[in-house]
C-alpha cells in the first residue's frame, strides 16, 4: 500500500474511526477499528465515508453558520468550492467537484467544525492504545478488537501488524471483509485472525458485478481457500439483505450449500438492509445509488433466518442489523 509507512517499527494506516462497545462485530463486547478504502462499490453501502482510500472532506450543514461566517468562500479555500445561492437562503453550498482538493488544512479553518476530514493516519500503537481502554470488557465478555472497513485487505501490512500486536497483547481478534483482494493480501492478514466475518453478497457473478462492481469468482475462491488454509479460524458468513437484490431463498440456499461443507464456518447471519448511512452520502457529496429501495420486512427476514437455522440444526436466533 502506498499510504503505509515502509518503517517496520511503526507501520501506519488510514483509520476512519474507532468505535467502542460494539456487540455485533464478533464475539463479546468489542472495539471496531474502521479502515479507509474499499475495493467494492456496493450500491447499498451504509459507510460511504469508508469507500475512498484517502482522507476526504465532509460537510455538515447543521453545524454551519452560513452567511454569518463565510470563511470558506475566501482563500485558501479553492475558488468556487463553496458558495451561496442568491435569493434562496443563508446556507453554504458545496461544489464537490471543486472542493475535492480540500484537506486537513482547510477543514481546520472551519470555526464550527462543519467541515472535517474523514480518515487519519495512525500507528499500530496509537490504535491499540485506544482499543485497550476497554480490555476489562473484553475479558468479561470474550470480546476483543475487530477490524472493519472499507476493506481490511486494502491495507494488509497495517492490518496484519495491528492484529499481530493485538494478539501479542492478549486480545481476541476479528475482521470483517468481503475478500475482494489478491490471496497474497489475505495470507498476510489471516494468520492473526481469530474470527473472520465475511460477506456473501450475491450468488450470480453478473448480478454480483452489477451491484458491487466486480464478479464474485475470486471472492468465492478466497473464501474457500481461507476455510481450508486456516482450519482453526472461525468463520461467520453474512449477507446484507436487500429486497429486490438478494433477499431471496435461492441466494440463501446457495450460500448455505457453499459454507456448510466447511465445519469452521460456524454461523451465517443476515443483516437486514437499513438506510442509516444515507445522511453520510450527503455530507460527502457522494451519489447514493439505492435511493428507492426499502428495508426488508420482518416476515421475509424471519423466513430466511428459519432456513439458516434449519441448516445449522437449531431453532431461532436474533441476527444483527446491517452494518
Amino acid at each position, binding site marked *: 500500500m502506498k499510504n503505509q509507512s515502509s518503517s517496520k517499527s511503526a507501520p501506519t494506516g488510514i483509520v476512519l474511526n474507532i468505535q467502542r462497545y460494539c456487540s455485533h462485530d464478533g464475539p463479546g463486547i468489542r472495539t471496531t477499528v474502521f479502515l479507509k478504502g*474499499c*475495493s*467494492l*462499490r456496493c450500491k447499498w453501502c451504509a459507510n460511504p465515508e469508508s469507500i*475512498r*482510500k484517502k482522507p476526504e472532506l465532509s*460537510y455538515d*450543514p*447543521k453545524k*454551519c453558520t452560513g452567511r454569518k461566517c463565510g470563511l470558506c468562500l475566501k482563500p485558501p479555500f479553492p*475558488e*468556487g468550492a463553496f*458558495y451561496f*445561492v*442568491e*435569493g*434562496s*437562503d443563508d*446556507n*453554504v*453550498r*458545496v*461544489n*464537490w*467537484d*471543486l472542493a*475535492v482538493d480540500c484537506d486537513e488544512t482547510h477543514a481546520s479553518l472551519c470555526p464550527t467544525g462543519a467541515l472535517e476530514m474523514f480518515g487519519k493516519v495512525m500507528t499500530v500503537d496509537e490504535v491499540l492504545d485506544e482499543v485497550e481502554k476497554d480490555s476489562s470488557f473484553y475479558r468479561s465478555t470474550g470480546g476483543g478488537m475487530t477490524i472493519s472497513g472499507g476493506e481490511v485487505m*486494502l491495507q494488509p501490512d497495517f492490518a496484519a501488524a495491528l492484529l499481530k500486536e493485538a494478539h501479542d497483547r492478549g486480545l481476541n481478534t476479528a475482521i470483517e471483509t468481503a475478500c*475482494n*483482494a*489478491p490471496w497474497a493480501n489475505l495470507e498476510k492478514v489471516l494468520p492473526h485472525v481469530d474470527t473472520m466475518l465475511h460477506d456473501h453478497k450475491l450468488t450470480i457473478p453478473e448480478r454480483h458485478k452489477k451491484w*458491487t*462492481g*466486480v464478479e464474485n469468482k*475470486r471472492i468465492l475462491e478466497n473464501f474457500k481457500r481461507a476455510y481450508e488454509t486456516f482450519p482453526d479460524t472461525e468463520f461467520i458468513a453474512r449477507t446484507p439483505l436487500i429486497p429486490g437484490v438478494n433477499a431471496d431463498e435461492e441466494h440463501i440456499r446457495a450460500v448455505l450449500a457453499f459454507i456448510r461443507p466447511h465445519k469452521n464456518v460456524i454461523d451465517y447471519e443476515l443483516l437486514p438492509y437499513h438506510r442509516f448511512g*444515507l*445522511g453520510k*452520502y*450527503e455530507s*460527502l*457529496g*457522494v*451519489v*447514493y445509488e439505492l*435511493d*428507492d429501495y426499502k428495508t426488508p420486512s420482518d416476515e421475509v427476514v424471519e423466513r430466511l433466518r428459519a432456513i439458516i437455522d434449519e441448516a445449522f440444526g437449531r431453532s431461532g436466533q436474533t441476527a444483527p442489523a446491517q452494518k
Partner: protein
Amino acid sequence: MNIDRRRIAINVGAGFVPGMNAVIMGTALAAAKQGWEVVGIRDGFEGLLQQDRYPDGGLVPLSPQLIENLDPAGGGILGQSARIDPFQVRTVNEDGMVEEVDMSGDLLARLKAEHIDALISVVGGRGLSILYKLHRKGLNTVCIPRSIENDIAATMVSFGFNTALSVTIEMLDKARQAAQSARKIGVVEVLGAQSGWLALQAGIGVCADAVLIPEIPCDLRAVAVRMKEKISPRRPYGLVVVAEGAKFVDKQQSKAQKPSLKDSLSPLATGDASDHVIQRSGQMAEAVAERLQLLIAEETYPLVLGPWVRGGVPTAVDRQLGLAYGAGAVRALNAGKNGVMVAFVPPDIKFVPLAEAINKVRTVPLDSEFIEIARSLGIFLGREI
C-alpha cells in the same frame, strides 16, 4: 491557435433531453460553413476514455452528408454517459479492485492525439463545473446549457426546458381530466429540485388550483382553505402542482419530508439538508396529498410525472434553440472565446465565462412576472406573501 482549419469535437453530458440532434446539427452545420471538421464523442467522454468499448470507434465523424440526413427531432446520435466526470472514472484495477481514478490528463492527451483543439459540451449544472475544471487544466471549451428544470442561472432558457414544459402541461391536462372524472384532488409532482420554473409555468399553462414551488415555502393549511373555496358541487375536483423540491413553512409539516439524498447528486443542491429535502421521486406528491387530505373533506391522490417528461418529441422552440446554441458555440470559438457557456439573454446569444456560470441557481424571484400572472389567474402559490 489557427482558426482557419480546425478540428473540433462535441459531446453530451449526463441526463437525457429530447432533441439533442438539433444541437449537434447546429454545431456541425456552422462548423462546416467555417471549413472545420467536427467529430462527436460517444457517451460523454467514454468514446475517448474507454475506446475498447467501441469497436467501430469512439468518435463519430459528423460530416455534412451525415448531418443532412439527421433528424433534428431525434434523441441524439452520440449517446450519453451516466456520469461525465473524467476526474473520477470508476474502474477495476489490475488487482481486481474497484477504484475511481483521475483520467482528466488522459482525456486531454487523447484530445490532443486526435488533433481536436476545442470541445463543445452540452451539459447541465454539474457538467458545467466539471468542464470548468477541465478548462482550468487546459481544455479549450464552449458549453451549451441543458436543463429540464431551467435552473442554470446564466441563461434565460436552457435547452430541453421548453420540451419538458410542453410535456408537463400535456400530462397535467390528463391528470386534471382524471381528477375530474374521479371527483378528487390530484396532487401532481413535477421535476424541480431547487427551482420551480417547470411547476409554475406548467401550472399557469393548465390554470392549476395551486402550485407549490421551492422558492415559496407553503402552508398546507392555507392550501386547504383555498381548495375548500375552489371546490363546489359544480366543480368537485382540483389540481395541485407540486415541484419535487417544494418546502413547507413549519417544522411539523416538514416532518413529511425526510433527509435528502438526491441533493447530493448535484453540487448545486448539496448542503441544505436541514430544511430542503427530497427523498425520492414521488415523495413530495405523497406528502402533500396525504397531509392535505387530513385537512379537507375531499379525497386527494398523488401522481408523479418524474422521468416521463424526459422523453418525447422536442418542441419547435427547443429545436430552434438547439440549432442556435450549436451554431452559437461555433461562433464563440470562431471569435476566439474559450471557457465560456453560450447563453440566451433575449434577444441575444451571449457568451458567459464558466467561472460565472457555475454555482448559481436560476430560481423564481418573488417579484417575477410569472408569480404575478399566476396570482392574476387565481392560482394559489402555497401562502400569501
